[in-house]
Protein backbone atom coordinates (compact mmCIF):
# COMPACT_ATOMS: atom_id res chain seq x y z
CA UNK A 1 0.00 0.00 0.00
CA UNK A 2 1.57 3.23 -1.07
CA UNK A 3 1.25 6.63 0.44
CA UNK A 4 -0.63 9.32 -1.38
CA UNK A 5 1.10 12.63 -1.89
CA UNK A 6 -1.23 15.52 -2.65
CA UNK A 7 -0.19 16.94 -5.99
CA UNK A 8 -1.88 20.29 -5.71
CA UNK A 9 -4.33 21.97 -3.37
CA UNK A 10 -7.69 23.25 -4.51
CA UNK A 11 -9.01 23.05 -8.01
CA UNK A 12 -12.14 21.34 -9.27
CA UNK A 13 -13.06 17.98 -7.69
CA UNK A 14 -12.09 15.06 -9.91
CA UNK A 15 -15.65 13.68 -10.13
CA UNK A 16 -16.90 16.98 -11.49
CA UNK A 17 -14.15 16.99 -14.11
CA UNK A 18 -15.09 13.43 -15.05
CA UNK A 19 -18.70 14.55 -15.58
CA UNK A 20 -17.71 17.55 -17.67
CA UNK A 21 -15.27 15.42 -19.67
CA UNK A 22 -17.68 12.61 -20.52
CA UNK A 23 -20.73 14.80 -21.21
CA UNK A 24 -18.75 17.47 -23.08
CA UNK A 25 -16.96 14.97 -25.30
CA UNK A 26 -20.18 13.05 -26.03
CA UNK A 27 -22.10 16.21 -26.95
CA UNK A 28 -19.30 17.38 -29.27
CA UNK A 29 -19.09 13.96 -30.93
CA UNK A 30 -22.83 13.83 -31.54
CA UNK A 31 -22.62 17.31 -33.11
CA UNK A 32 -20.07 15.82 -35.55
CA UNK A 33 -22.77 13.32 -36.54
CA UNK A 34 -24.79 16.30 -37.88
CA UNK A 35 -22.33 16.12 -40.80
CA UNK A 36 -23.96 12.90 -41.96
CA UNK A 37 -27.51 14.19 -41.36
CA UNK A 38 -27.00 17.48 -43.18
CA UNK A 39 -24.54 16.19 -45.84
CA UNK A 40 -21.86 18.68 -44.94
CA UNK A 41 -18.50 18.57 -43.21
CA UNK A 42 -18.26 21.94 -41.45
CA UNK A 43 -18.98 20.40 -38.04
CA UNK A 44 -15.80 18.32 -38.17
CA UNK A 45 -13.92 20.62 -35.79
CA UNK A 46 -16.23 19.59 -32.94
CA UNK A 47 -14.36 16.28 -33.01
CA UNK A 48 -11.18 18.11 -32.08
CA UNK A 49 -13.03 19.93 -29.28
CA UNK A 50 -14.26 16.56 -27.96
CA UNK A 51 -10.68 15.29 -27.92
CA UNK A 52 -9.44 18.38 -26.09
CA UNK A 53 -12.20 18.12 -23.46
CA UNK A 54 -11.26 14.46 -22.94
CA UNK A 55 -7.57 15.36 -22.66
CA UNK A 56 -8.39 18.08 -20.13
CA UNK A 57 -10.14 15.50 -17.96
CA UNK A 58 -7.47 12.84 -18.60
CA UNK A 59 -4.72 15.12 -17.32
CA UNK A 60 -6.44 15.21 -13.94
CA UNK A 61 -6.82 11.41 -14.01
CA UNK A 62 -3.07 11.06 -14.63
CA UNK A 63 -2.46 13.48 -11.77
CA UNK A 64 -4.65 11.47 -9.41
CA UNK A 65 -2.96 8.22 -10.45
CA UNK A 66 0.57 9.61 -10.21
CA UNK A 67 -0.10 11.08 -6.76
CA UNK A 68 0.76 7.56 -5.65
CA UNK A 69 4.25 6.30 -6.34
CA UNK A 70 3.99 4.51 -9.67
CA UNK A 71 7.72 3.83 -9.66
CA UNK A 72 7.97 4.67 -13.32
CA UNK A 73 7.54 7.87 -15.26
CA UNK A 74 4.30 9.75 -15.86
CA UNK A 75 4.43 9.18 -19.68
CA UNK A 76 3.84 5.45 -19.19
CA UNK A 77 0.28 6.24 -18.09
CA UNK A 78 -0.21 8.20 -21.31
CA UNK A 79 1.10 5.33 -23.43
CA UNK A 80 -1.20 2.72 -21.85
CA UNK A 81 -4.09 5.17 -22.19
CA UNK A 82 -3.74 5.51 -25.95
CA UNK A 83 -2.50 1.94 -26.48
CA UNK A 84 -5.66 0.45 -25.02
CA UNK A 85 -7.83 3.35 -26.21
CA UNK A 86 -7.08 2.69 -29.88
CA UNK A 87 -8.41 -0.88 -29.54
CA UNK A 88 -11.66 0.31 -27.94
CA UNK A 89 -12.00 3.10 -30.48
CA UNK A 90 -11.59 0.89 -33.58
CA UNK A 91 -14.00 -1.69 -32.21
CA UNK A 92 -16.53 1.04 -31.42
CA UNK A 93 -16.43 2.43 -34.96
CA UNK A 94 -17.63 -0.98 -36.15
CA UNK A 95 -20.77 -0.56 -33.99
CA UNK A 96 -21.94 1.93 -36.63
CA UNK A 97 -23.10 -1.14 -38.52
CA UNK A 98 -25.88 -1.44 -35.90
CA UNK A 99 -26.52 2.28 -35.48
CA UNK A 100 -24.13 5.22 -35.99
CA UNK A 101 -25.50 6.82 -32.82
CA UNK A 102 -24.06 3.92 -30.82
CA UNK A 103 -20.45 4.78 -31.66
CA UNK A 104 -19.51 7.46 -29.07
CA UNK A 105 -21.46 5.81 -26.26
CA UNK A 106 -20.21 2.33 -27.22
CA UNK A 107 -16.67 3.68 -27.31
CA UNK A 108 -16.95 4.77 -23.68
CA UNK A 109 -18.48 1.48 -22.54
CA UNK A 110 -15.96 -0.75 -24.36
CA UNK A 111 -13.03 1.40 -23.19
CA UNK A 112 -14.34 1.18 -19.63
CA UNK A 113 -14.44 -2.64 -19.85
CA UNK A 114 -10.91 -2.92 -21.30
CA UNK A 115 -9.58 -0.29 -18.89
CA UNK A 116 -11.14 -1.92 -15.85
CA UNK A 117 -9.51 -5.25 -16.74
CA UNK A 118 -6.12 -3.58 -17.33
CA UNK A 119 -6.51 -1.64 -14.08
CA UNK A 120 -7.35 -4.82 -12.20
CA UNK A 121 -4.27 -6.51 -13.67
CA UNK A 122 -1.93 -3.68 -12.68
CA UNK A 123 -3.48 -3.23 -9.25
CA UNK A 124 -3.96 -6.82 -8.12
CA UNK A 125 -1.99 -9.18 -10.38
CA UNK A 126 1.09 -6.95 -10.47
CA UNK A 127 0.61 -6.10 -6.78
CA UNK A 128 0.73 -2.33 -7.22
CA UNK A 129 -1.87 -1.95 -4.44
CA UNK A 130 -2.88 1.58 -5.38
CA UNK A 131 -6.50 2.24 -4.33
CA UNK A 132 -7.46 4.40 -7.33
CA UNK A 133 -5.57 2.35 -9.91
CA UNK A 134 -8.45 0.34 -11.42
CA UNK A 135 -10.66 3.40 -11.73
CA UNK A 136 -7.95 5.68 -13.13
CA UNK A 137 -6.67 3.21 -15.74
CA UNK A 138 -10.30 2.73 -16.82
CA UNK A 139 -10.74 6.51 -17.05
CA UNK A 140 -7.49 6.87 -18.98
CA UNK A 141 -8.55 4.20 -21.47
CA UNK A 142 -11.82 6.08 -22.02
CA UNK A 143 -9.86 9.32 -22.48
CA UNK A 144 -7.52 7.63 -24.96
CA UNK A 145 -10.38 6.19 -27.00
CA UNK A 146 -12.35 9.48 -26.97
CA UNK A 147 -9.22 11.35 -28.08
CA UNK A 148 -8.73 8.96 -30.99
CA UNK A 149 -12.43 9.13 -31.86
CA UNK A 150 -12.49 12.93 -31.68
CA UNK A 151 -9.38 13.52 -33.78
CA UNK A 152 -10.49 10.89 -36.31
CA UNK A 153 -13.88 12.58 -36.59
CA UNK A 154 -12.13 15.89 -37.09
CA UNK A 155 -9.93 14.53 -39.89
CA UNK A 156 -12.61 12.69 -41.85
CA UNK A 157 -15.82 14.34 -40.66
CA UNK A 158 -17.19 10.94 -39.66
CA UNK A 159 -16.62 8.19 -37.13
CA UNK A 160 -18.27 5.35 -39.04
CA UNK A 161 -16.00 2.42 -39.91
CA UNK A 162 -17.11 2.11 -43.52
CA UNK A 163 -16.36 5.83 -44.06
CA UNK A 164 -12.98 5.50 -42.40
CA UNK A 165 -11.75 2.71 -44.67
CA UNK A 166 -12.92 4.12 -48.00
CA UNK A 167 -11.26 7.16 -49.48
CA UNK A 168 -11.56 8.49 -53.00
CA UNK A 169 -8.85 9.45 -55.43
CA UNK A 170 -9.33 11.31 -58.65
CA UNK A 171 -7.66 9.48 -61.53
CA UNK A 172 -7.82 10.97 -65.06
CA UNK A 173 -10.97 12.86 -64.13
CA UNK A 174 -12.68 9.78 -62.67
CA UNK A 175 -13.27 9.44 -58.94
CA UNK A 176 -12.23 5.98 -57.81
CA UNK A 177 -12.77 4.49 -54.38
CA UNK A 178 -9.44 3.62 -52.85
CA UNK A 179 -8.74 1.94 -49.53
CA UNK A 180 -5.21 3.35 -49.48
CA UNK A 181 -6.50 6.94 -49.50
CA UNK A 182 -8.60 6.50 -46.36
CA UNK A 183 -8.01 7.37 -42.70
CA UNK A 184 -7.30 3.75 -41.69
CA UNK A 185 -5.74 2.56 -44.96
CA UNK A 186 -3.44 5.57 -45.10
CA UNK A 187 -2.47 4.85 -41.50
CA UNK A 188 -3.37 8.39 -40.43
CA UNK A 189 -4.32 6.62 -37.18
CA UNK A 190 -0.63 6.23 -36.27
CA UNK A 191 -0.15 10.01 -36.43
CA UNK A 192 -3.32 10.66 -34.43
CA UNK A 193 -2.11 8.08 -31.92
CA UNK A 194 1.12 9.93 -31.23
CA UNK A 195 -0.53 13.38 -31.29
CA UNK A 196 -2.96 12.20 -28.62
CA UNK A 197 -0.28 10.41 -26.62
CA UNK A 198 1.96 13.49 -26.50
CA UNK A 199 -0.98 15.69 -25.52
CA UNK A 200 -2.00 13.45 -22.63
CA UNK A 201 1.41 12.56 -21.22
CA UNK A 202 3.02 15.96 -21.41
CA UNK A 203 0.97 18.36 -19.21
CA UNK A 204 1.37 16.76 -15.80
CA UNK A 205 4.89 15.61 -16.64
CA UNK A 206 5.83 19.21 -17.41
CA UNK A 207 4.06 20.88 -14.49
CA UNK A 208 4.62 18.41 -11.64
CA UNK A 209 6.66 19.39 -8.65
CA UNK A 210 6.24 21.12 -5.30
CA UNK A 211 4.87 24.26 -6.96
CA UNK A 212 2.32 22.49 -9.17
CA UNK A 213 -1.01 24.30 -9.37
CA UNK A 214 -4.28 22.99 -10.74
CA UNK A 215 -5.14 25.77 -13.16
CA UNK A 216 -1.66 25.89 -14.71
CA UNK A 217 -1.56 22.11 -15.32
CA UNK A 218 -5.04 22.15 -16.83
CA UNK A 219 -4.18 25.13 -19.02
CA UNK A 220 -1.10 23.23 -20.22
CA UNK A 221 -3.41 20.30 -21.05
CA UNK A 222 -5.64 22.60 -23.12
CA UNK A 223 -2.59 24.09 -24.82
CA UNK A 224 -1.22 20.65 -25.77
CA UNK A 225 -4.68 19.53 -26.92
CA UNK A 226 -5.19 22.57 -29.15
CA UNK A 227 -1.68 22.20 -30.58
CA UNK A 228 -2.48 18.61 -31.59
CA UNK A 229 -5.85 19.84 -32.93
CA UNK A 230 -3.98 22.34 -35.10
CA UNK A 231 -1.92 19.56 -36.70
CA UNK A 232 -5.05 17.45 -37.16
CA UNK A 233 -6.74 20.40 -38.88
CA UNK A 234 -3.85 20.60 -41.34
CA UNK A 235 -4.03 16.85 -42.00
CA UNK A 236 -7.78 17.04 -42.67
CA UNK A 237 -7.00 18.82 -45.98
CA UNK A 238 -6.81 15.36 -47.51
CA UNK A 239 -10.37 14.40 -46.59
CA UNK A 240 -12.58 17.47 -46.12
CA UNK A 241 -13.74 20.40 -48.22
CA UNK A 242 -11.53 23.47 -48.12
CA UNK A 243 -14.19 25.50 -46.29
CA UNK A 244 -14.37 22.98 -43.44
CA UNK A 245 -10.58 22.79 -43.22
CA UNK A 246 -10.28 26.58 -42.99
CA UNK A 247 -12.90 26.66 -40.21
CA UNK A 248 -11.06 23.90 -38.29
CA UNK A 249 -7.71 25.58 -38.79
CA UNK A 250 -8.84 29.07 -37.74
CA UNK A 251 -10.65 27.77 -34.65
CA UNK A 252 -7.64 25.65 -33.65
CA UNK A 253 -5.14 28.45 -34.08
CA UNK A 254 -7.28 30.97 -32.16
CA UNK A 255 -7.85 28.55 -29.27
CA UNK A 256 -4.19 27.49 -29.23
CA UNK A 257 -3.03 31.12 -29.20
CA UNK A 258 -5.41 31.91 -26.34
CA UNK A 259 -4.41 28.88 -24.26
CA UNK A 260 -0.70 29.46 -24.90
CA UNK A 261 -0.83 33.10 -23.75
CA UNK A 262 -2.91 32.11 -20.71
CA UNK A 263 -0.41 29.35 -19.89
CA UNK A 264 2.52 31.78 -20.08
CA UNK A 265 0.61 34.18 -17.78
CA UNK A 266 -0.01 31.42 -15.23
CA UNK A 267 3.62 30.31 -15.45
CA UNK A 268 4.75 33.87 -14.76
CA UNK A 269 2.32 34.02 -11.84
CA UNK A 270 3.72 30.83 -10.26
CA UNK A 271 7.36 31.62 -10.97
CA UNK A 272 9.53 33.10 -8.24
CA UNK A 273 11.11 35.48 -10.72
CA UNK A 274 10.87 36.01 -14.44
CA UNK A 275 13.67 37.11 -16.75
CA UNK A 276 12.52 37.93 -20.25
CA UNK A 277 15.70 36.90 -22.05
CA UNK A 278 16.16 38.68 -25.34
CA UNK A 279 17.55 36.97 -28.43
CA UNK A 280 21.34 36.75 -28.47
CA UNK A 281 22.79 40.05 -29.66
CA UNK A 282 25.86 40.51 -31.78
CA UNK A 283 28.16 42.51 -29.52
CA UNK A 284 31.27 42.50 -31.66
CA UNK A 285 32.14 45.72 -33.49
CA UNK A 286 30.13 48.09 -31.28
Amino acid at each position, binding site marked *: MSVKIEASEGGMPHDKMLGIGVVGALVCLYIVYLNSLMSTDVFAFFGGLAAVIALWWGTDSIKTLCSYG*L*GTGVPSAGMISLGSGVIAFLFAT*KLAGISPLLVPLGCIIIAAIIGAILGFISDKV*LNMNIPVMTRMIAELTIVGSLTMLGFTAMISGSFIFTDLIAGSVSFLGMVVTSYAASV*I*GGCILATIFMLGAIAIQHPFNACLGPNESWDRTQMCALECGFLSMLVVAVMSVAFLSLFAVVISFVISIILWGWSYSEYIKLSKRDAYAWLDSKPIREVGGE
Partner: protein
Amino acid sequence: MSALGGGSSGGEGINPTASLIALVIVLIAVAVVFLVYPAATVPLIGVIIGGVLISFGVHFVPVGGAPAAMGQAPGIATGVAMLAAGGGLAGLFGGAWAAEFGIAISLAAGAIGGGLLMAITCLMVNVVYVFAMGIPAASGKVYKDPITGDVFPPYKSQGTEGHGLPFISYVGGVLGGLFGGMGGTLIYYELLQVYEEALPSFLGATTEGLTILAVSLAGIFAVGMFLVAAVLTAYNITGTIEGPHDPKFKRWPRAVIGSSAASAVCGLFAILLVVI
Protein backbone atom coordinates in the same frame (compact mmCIF):
# COMPACT_ATOMS: atom_id res chain seq x y z
CA MET B 1 12.22 7.30 -9.58
CA SER B 2 8.74 8.24 -8.60
CA ALA B 3 7.22 11.33 -10.09
CA LEU B 4 6.33 13.01 -6.83
CA GLY B 5 8.83 11.41 -4.53
CA GLY B 6 6.45 8.82 -3.14
CA GLY B 7 7.93 5.39 -2.47
CA SER B 8 7.52 2.94 -5.30
CA SER B 9 4.83 0.57 -4.24
CA GLY B 10 5.32 -2.74 -6.03
CA GLY B 11 5.11 -5.46 -3.45
CA GLU B 12 6.83 -8.83 -3.71
CA GLY B 13 5.14 -12.15 -4.31
CA ILE B 14 2.22 -13.31 -6.38
CA ASN B 15 -1.40 -12.64 -5.50
CA PRO B 16 -2.93 -16.12 -6.08
CA THR B 17 -6.60 -15.09 -6.31
CA ALA B 18 -5.94 -12.28 -8.76
CA SER B 19 -3.61 -14.45 -10.86
CA LEU B 20 -6.32 -17.11 -11.06
CA ILE B 21 -8.85 -14.49 -12.19
CA ALA B 22 -6.36 -13.31 -14.83
CA LEU B 23 -5.97 -16.85 -16.16
CA VAL B 24 -9.77 -17.24 -16.23
CA ILE B 25 -9.94 -14.02 -18.30
CA VAL B 26 -7.49 -15.60 -20.78
CA LEU B 27 -9.63 -18.75 -21.01
CA ILE B 28 -12.85 -16.77 -21.45
CA ALA B 29 -11.30 -14.69 -24.25
CA VAL B 30 -10.11 -17.81 -26.08
CA ALA B 31 -13.49 -19.50 -25.56
CA VAL B 32 -15.41 -16.48 -26.91
CA VAL B 33 -13.25 -16.36 -30.04
CA PHE B 34 -13.58 -20.12 -30.49
CA LEU B 35 -17.39 -19.82 -30.36
CA VAL B 36 -17.91 -16.79 -32.60
CA TYR B 37 -15.02 -17.13 -35.06
CA PRO B 38 -13.21 -20.48 -34.73
CA ALA B 39 -10.64 -19.71 -37.44
CA ALA B 40 -9.17 -16.99 -35.21
CA THR B 41 -8.52 -19.18 -32.17
CA VAL B 42 -4.94 -20.02 -33.11
CA PRO B 43 -4.13 -16.37 -34.01
CA LEU B 44 -5.50 -15.25 -30.63
CA ILE B 45 -3.22 -17.72 -28.88
CA GLY B 46 -0.38 -16.31 -31.00
CA VAL B 47 -1.28 -12.81 -29.85
CA ILE B 48 -1.23 -13.95 -26.21
CA ILE B 49 2.19 -15.57 -26.70
CA GLY B 50 3.37 -12.34 -28.31
CA GLY B 51 2.26 -10.34 -25.27
CA VAL B 52 4.02 -12.81 -22.98
CA LEU B 53 7.25 -12.55 -25.02
CA ILE B 54 7.13 -8.75 -24.81
CA SER B 55 6.59 -8.67 -21.07
CA PHE B 56 9.26 -11.33 -20.43
CA GLY B 57 11.71 -9.52 -22.71
CA VAL B 58 11.25 -6.11 -21.09
CA HIS B 59 12.61 -7.56 -17.83
CA PHE B 60 16.01 -8.06 -19.50
CA VAL B 61 16.37 -4.45 -20.59
CA PRO B 62 18.62 -2.39 -18.27
CA VAL B 63 16.46 0.61 -17.38
CA GLY B 64 18.17 3.30 -15.33
CA GLY B 65 15.76 6.21 -15.39
CA ALA B 66 16.71 9.65 -14.12
CA PRO B 67 19.35 8.39 -11.60
CA ALA B 68 21.26 6.77 -14.46
CA ALA B 69 21.37 10.07 -16.31
CA MET B 70 23.20 11.52 -13.30
CA GLY B 71 25.57 8.56 -13.12
CA GLN B 72 24.09 7.31 -9.84
CA ALA B 73 22.55 4.04 -11.03
CA PRO B 74 23.41 1.55 -13.78
CA GLY B 75 21.36 1.24 -16.92
CA ILE B 76 20.12 3.27 -19.86
CA ALA B 77 18.93 6.70 -18.76
CA THR B 78 15.25 6.57 -19.68
CA GLY B 79 11.99 4.87 -18.65
CA VAL B 80 10.83 1.32 -19.31
CA ALA B 81 7.98 2.34 -21.58
CA MET B 82 10.23 4.43 -23.85
CA LEU B 83 12.95 1.77 -24.14
CA ALA B 84 10.48 -1.03 -24.75
CA ALA B 85 8.67 1.07 -27.34
CA GLY B 86 11.94 1.86 -29.10
CA GLY B 87 13.27 -1.69 -29.17
CA GLY B 88 9.94 -3.39 -29.79
CA LEU B 89 8.67 -1.07 -32.47
CA ALA B 90 11.98 -1.23 -34.35
CA GLY B 91 11.55 -5.01 -34.29
CA LEU B 92 7.90 -4.74 -35.29
CA PHE B 93 8.76 -2.64 -38.34
CA GLY B 94 11.56 -5.02 -39.25
CA GLY B 95 9.26 -8.03 -38.96
CA ALA B 96 6.40 -6.34 -40.79
CA TRP B 97 8.56 -5.88 -43.90
CA ALA B 98 9.27 -9.60 -43.91
CA ALA B 99 5.65 -10.71 -43.25
CA GLU B 100 5.21 -11.97 -46.82
CA PHE B 101 8.04 -14.50 -46.40
CA GLY B 102 6.24 -16.54 -43.76
CA ILE B 103 6.18 -16.65 -39.99
CA ALA B 104 9.71 -17.94 -39.34
CA ILE B 105 11.56 -15.30 -41.36
CA SER B 106 9.18 -12.61 -40.14
CA LEU B 107 9.80 -13.47 -36.47
CA ALA B 108 13.55 -13.69 -37.06
CA ALA B 109 13.57 -10.29 -38.77
CA GLY B 110 11.55 -8.80 -35.92
CA ALA B 111 13.90 -10.24 -33.29
CA ILE B 112 17.00 -9.05 -35.15
CA GLY B 113 15.48 -5.58 -35.57
CA GLY B 114 14.71 -5.21 -31.87
CA GLY B 115 18.04 -6.73 -30.79
CA LEU B 116 19.98 -4.52 -33.19
CA LEU B 117 18.34 -1.36 -31.89
CA MET B 118 19.08 -2.32 -28.30
CA ALA B 119 22.68 -3.30 -29.18
CA ILE B 120 23.33 0.08 -30.80
CA THR B 121 21.60 1.92 -27.94
CA CYS B 122 23.59 0.07 -25.27
CA LEU B 123 26.86 0.63 -27.13
CA MET B 124 26.30 4.35 -27.54
CA VAL B 125 25.09 4.67 -23.94
CA ASN B 126 28.38 3.15 -22.77
CA VAL B 127 30.38 5.38 -25.11
CA VAL B 128 28.69 8.41 -23.53
CA TYR B 129 29.14 7.06 -20.00
CA VAL B 130 32.79 6.17 -20.37
CA PHE B 131 34.15 8.86 -22.69
CA ALA B 132 31.84 11.79 -21.97
CA MET B 133 30.88 11.39 -18.31
CA GLY B 134 34.08 9.61 -17.31
CA ILE B 135 32.49 6.85 -15.25
CA PRO B 136 33.36 3.14 -15.35
CA ALA B 137 30.68 0.45 -15.62
CA ALA B 138 29.88 -1.11 -12.26
CA SER B 139 26.77 -2.73 -10.83
CA GLY B 140 25.77 -2.26 -7.20
CA LYS B 141 23.41 -5.23 -6.99
CA VAL B 142 25.91 -8.10 -7.47
CA TYR B 143 29.54 -8.67 -6.46
CA LYS B 144 30.85 -9.73 -9.86
CA ASP B 145 29.64 -9.92 -13.43
CA PRO B 146 28.05 -13.37 -13.98
CA ILE B 147 29.46 -13.61 -17.51
CA THR B 148 32.91 -12.01 -17.50
CA GLY B 149 33.65 -12.54 -13.80
CA ASP B 150 34.87 -8.96 -13.33
CA VAL B 151 34.38 -7.66 -9.79
CA PHE B 152 32.42 -4.46 -9.32
CA PRO B 153 33.03 -3.00 -5.80
CA PRO B 154 36.50 -1.45 -6.52
CA TYR B 155 34.98 0.57 -9.37
CA LYS B 156 31.75 1.62 -7.69
CA SER B 157 31.57 5.19 -6.37
CA GLN B 158 30.45 5.64 -2.79
CA GLY B 159 26.85 6.66 -2.31
CA THR B 160 25.69 5.34 -5.68
CA GLU B 161 23.98 2.11 -6.69
CA GLY B 162 26.60 1.62 -9.36
CA HIS B 163 26.89 3.35 -12.73
CA GLY B 164 27.48 2.76 -16.39
CA LEU B 165 26.37 -0.32 -18.28
CA PRO B 166 28.19 -3.55 -17.27
CA PHE B 167 28.55 -6.39 -19.76
CA ILE B 168 25.72 -8.43 -18.23
CA SER B 169 23.36 -5.47 -18.66
CA TYR B 170 24.45 -5.11 -22.29
CA VAL B 171 23.67 -8.77 -22.93
CA GLY B 172 20.35 -8.33 -21.12
CA GLY B 173 19.48 -5.33 -23.30
CA VAL B 174 20.12 -7.26 -26.52
CA LEU B 175 18.14 -10.28 -25.25
CA GLY B 176 15.27 -7.95 -24.28
CA GLY B 177 15.29 -6.44 -27.75
CA LEU B 178 15.22 -9.90 -29.33
CA PHE B 179 12.23 -11.02 -27.23
CA GLY B 180 10.37 -7.72 -27.55
CA GLY B 181 10.83 -7.49 -31.30
CA MET B 182 9.76 -11.11 -31.75
CA GLY B 183 6.65 -10.61 -29.57
CA GLY B 184 5.57 -7.45 -31.38
CA THR B 185 6.04 -9.12 -34.75
CA LEU B 186 4.10 -12.20 -33.66
CA ILE B 187 1.09 -10.03 -32.65
CA TYR B 188 1.25 -8.18 -35.96
CA TYR B 189 1.65 -11.34 -38.03
CA GLU B 190 -1.25 -13.20 -36.41
CA LEU B 191 -3.62 -10.23 -36.69
CA LEU B 192 -2.58 -9.74 -40.31
CA GLN B 193 -3.55 -13.36 -41.07
CA VAL B 194 -6.99 -12.83 -39.50
CA TYR B 195 -7.67 -9.57 -41.34
CA GLU B 196 -6.42 -10.76 -44.72
CA GLU B 197 -8.75 -13.72 -44.48
CA ALA B 198 -11.80 -11.98 -43.01
CA LEU B 199 -11.84 -8.50 -44.56
CA PRO B 200 -12.87 -9.48 -48.12
CA SER B 201 -15.86 -11.49 -46.87
CA PHE B 202 -17.36 -8.93 -44.50
CA LEU B 203 -16.74 -5.94 -46.74
CA GLY B 204 -18.27 -7.89 -49.62
CA ALA B 205 -15.76 -6.28 -51.91
CA THR B 206 -12.93 -7.32 -54.13
CA THR B 207 -9.62 -8.11 -52.51
CA GLU B 208 -8.08 -5.29 -54.54
CA GLY B 209 -6.39 -2.90 -52.12
CA LEU B 210 -7.68 -4.69 -49.04
CA THR B 211 -4.15 -5.81 -48.13
CA ILE B 212 -3.20 -2.26 -47.28
CA LEU B 213 -6.23 -2.02 -45.00
CA ALA B 214 -5.26 -5.28 -43.25
CA VAL B 215 -1.68 -4.06 -42.83
CA SER B 216 -2.81 -0.73 -41.34
CA LEU B 217 -5.28 -2.31 -38.93
CA ALA B 218 -2.87 -5.04 -37.80
CA GLY B 219 -0.09 -2.48 -37.44
CA ILE B 220 -1.99 -0.03 -35.26
CA PHE B 221 -3.42 -2.84 -33.10
CA ALA B 222 0.07 -4.34 -32.69
CA VAL B 223 1.46 -0.97 -31.60
CA GLY B 224 -1.38 -0.51 -29.10
CA MET B 225 -1.01 -4.00 -27.62
CA PHE B 226 2.74 -3.67 -27.52
CA LEU B 227 2.48 -0.50 -25.45
CA VAL B 228 -0.09 -2.07 -23.12
CA ALA B 229 2.16 -5.08 -22.44
CA ALA B 230 5.27 -2.91 -22.06
CA VAL B 231 3.64 -0.45 -19.63
CA LEU B 232 2.17 -3.25 -17.51
CA THR B 233 5.69 -4.70 -17.29
CA ALA B 234 7.03 -1.26 -16.36
CA TYR B 235 4.52 -1.18 -13.49
CA ASN B 236 5.71 -4.63 -12.44
CA ILE B 237 9.35 -3.54 -12.41
CA THR B 238 8.44 -0.24 -10.66
CA GLY B 239 11.05 1.95 -12.24
CA THR B 240 14.57 0.67 -12.63
CA ILE B 241 16.12 -2.72 -13.30
CA GLU B 242 19.72 -3.60 -14.12
CA GLY B 243 19.16 -6.70 -16.24
CA PRO B 244 18.86 -10.43 -15.69
CA HIS B 245 21.11 -10.36 -12.59
CA ASP B 246 18.88 -7.87 -10.75
CA PRO B 247 16.78 -9.34 -7.90
CA LYS B 248 13.72 -7.61 -9.43
CA PHE B 249 14.08 -9.94 -12.43
CA LYS B 250 12.46 -12.67 -10.29
CA ARG B 251 9.16 -10.78 -10.54
CA TRP B 252 8.66 -11.84 -14.16
CA PRO B 253 6.01 -14.56 -13.56
CA ARG B 254 3.34 -12.10 -12.47
CA ALA B 255 4.08 -9.77 -15.40
CA VAL B 256 3.70 -12.74 -17.71
CA ILE B 257 0.33 -13.62 -16.13
CA GLY B 258 -0.82 -10.00 -16.30
CA SER B 259 0.32 -9.46 -19.87
CA SER B 260 -1.27 -12.67 -21.10
CA ALA B 261 -4.63 -11.53 -19.69
CA ALA B 262 -4.21 -8.03 -21.12
CA SER B 263 -3.20 -9.35 -24.56
CA ALA B 264 -6.10 -11.81 -24.50
CA VAL B 265 -8.65 -9.03 -23.84
CA CYS B 266 -7.12 -6.63 -26.39
CA GLY B 267 -6.73 -9.44 -28.93
CA LEU B 268 -10.35 -10.48 -28.37
CA PHE B 269 -11.62 -7.01 -29.30
CA ALA B 270 -9.19 -6.78 -32.23
CA ILE B 271 -10.55 -10.06 -33.63
CA LEU B 272 -14.21 -9.27 -32.84
CA LEU B 273 -13.75 -6.21 -35.08
CA VAL B 274 -14.12 -8.43 -38.13
CA VAL B 275 -16.95 -10.50 -36.67
CA ILE B 276 -19.66 -7.95 -35.84
